[in-house]
């Protein structure tokens, strides 16, 4: 793990990158990293996240700035700008059931090719997917998702990069941390190594590439 300033952390992200971002309606989203993506004008991004939040918050800021070509999300209902850009054909939206999205990202980080889920069988979600039957029940094969970068918001980090989360700000953060080539984390608190109990670490240090020092 390397400590890094937010400007340098974002500078290494190329235009066109696939970025997974933590958060659920911006709760648990690293706002500082998102702001810096906007400031540096990183464009043509593909975003993997639960949702596109609301205009002016979290991932909504990337949508407003028109930096995103494609989103893979479960929900866009609270961001009319996402819907407008989708209708206008300037933003591709892949809608994925929330539980399926969580499992696809987890599979990407855990070295699984995919999972079999009953969710979506017989609906529009099934289009283009393989059906498999196991013990008499029908499932869809949902394949793994991975990202070039994961942008994480943690509650506390230690000097090695071990991360904890708090309350409902955990959501997709520990999942995307496993599923990206490069993991950049912001933390509300940075504490000396040893202050987080081993049993309370949620994202282990070796997974984290960069910890932002000025979040």
């Amino acid at each position, binding site marked *: 793990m390397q400590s890094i300033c937010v400007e340098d952390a974002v500078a290494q992200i190329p235009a066109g990158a696939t970025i997974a971002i933590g958060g*659920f309606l911006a*709760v648990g989203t690293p706002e500082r990293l998102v702001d810096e993506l906007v400031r540096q004008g990183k464009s043509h991004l593909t975003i993997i996240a639960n949702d596109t939040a609301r205009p002016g918050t979290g991932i909504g800021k990337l949508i407003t700035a028109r930096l995103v070509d494609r989103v893979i999300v479960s929900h866009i209902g609270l961001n009319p700008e996402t819907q407008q850009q989708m209708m206008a054909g300037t933003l591709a*939206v892949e809608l994925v059931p929330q*539980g399926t999205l969580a499992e696809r990202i987890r599979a990407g980080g855990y070295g699984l090719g995919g999972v079999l889920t009953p969710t979506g069988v017989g*609906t529009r979600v099934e289009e283009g997917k393989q059906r498999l039957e196991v013990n008499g029940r029908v499932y869809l094969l949902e394949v793994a998702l991975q990202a070039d970068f994961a942008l994480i918001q943690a509650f506390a980090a230690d000097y090695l990069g071990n991360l904890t989360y708090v309350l409902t700000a955990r959501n997709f953060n520990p999942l995307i941390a496993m599923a990206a080539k490069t993991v950049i984390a912001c933390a509300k608190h940075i504490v000396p190594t040893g202050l987080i109990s081993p049993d309370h670490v949620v994202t282990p240090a070796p997974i984290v590439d960069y910890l932002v020092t000025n979040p």
Partner: protein
Amino acid sequence: MNAPTLIARRIARELRSGMLVNLGIGIPTLVANYVPERVKVFFQSENGLIGTGAVPEEGMAEPLLTDAGGTPVTALPGASTFDSAVSFGLIRGGHVDLTVLGALQVDQAGHLANWMIPGRMVPGMGGAMDLVCGARRVIVAMLHTAKGEPKIVPALTLPLTALRTVDLVVTELAVIAFPDGRATLLERGPGISLSDIKAATAAELIIPDDVPEMWP
């Protein structure tokens, strides 16, 4: 009593102690206000919380503790938090005993459409498809009609949420179940006649001899 309150109170009577319950946004959320005395249930918010409590007092909201609609909530003693994969493991794995969801349409077999109106409104399914697939019991809470148009229809015209049918639909006019895949009237709204219900329902509705008034 207004329609949402009536619906929420009626559904709250389905709660049993020990149940793990997931409430959708809108009318379903109101169910939490009418949990019967002595009944202790766990409410799950699919953004990663079991033990969701009431809205916090003025000035006490914690921005990192919200429900699945992003509204600040409290957590009761004994609450637990977890990531989104665990949250949907609880849902898809059959550990959620009951979910209460809104609907755009329900067909006469009990199929549900609640996640998009093609070309007009595409909010995304969020957790709805997983909830309908995975929860042990699915109850729909909705107004009986939308702008005067029946929402309980012979066949869905909107995209399906899941192959699995719902167990109960509760509106301000009626409580409907789907034994043998056929919409069947169980209860009437307070002061509501059978002809009121038939007029507001496009689906074929089986009406038993005795249809008691709902007791919310």
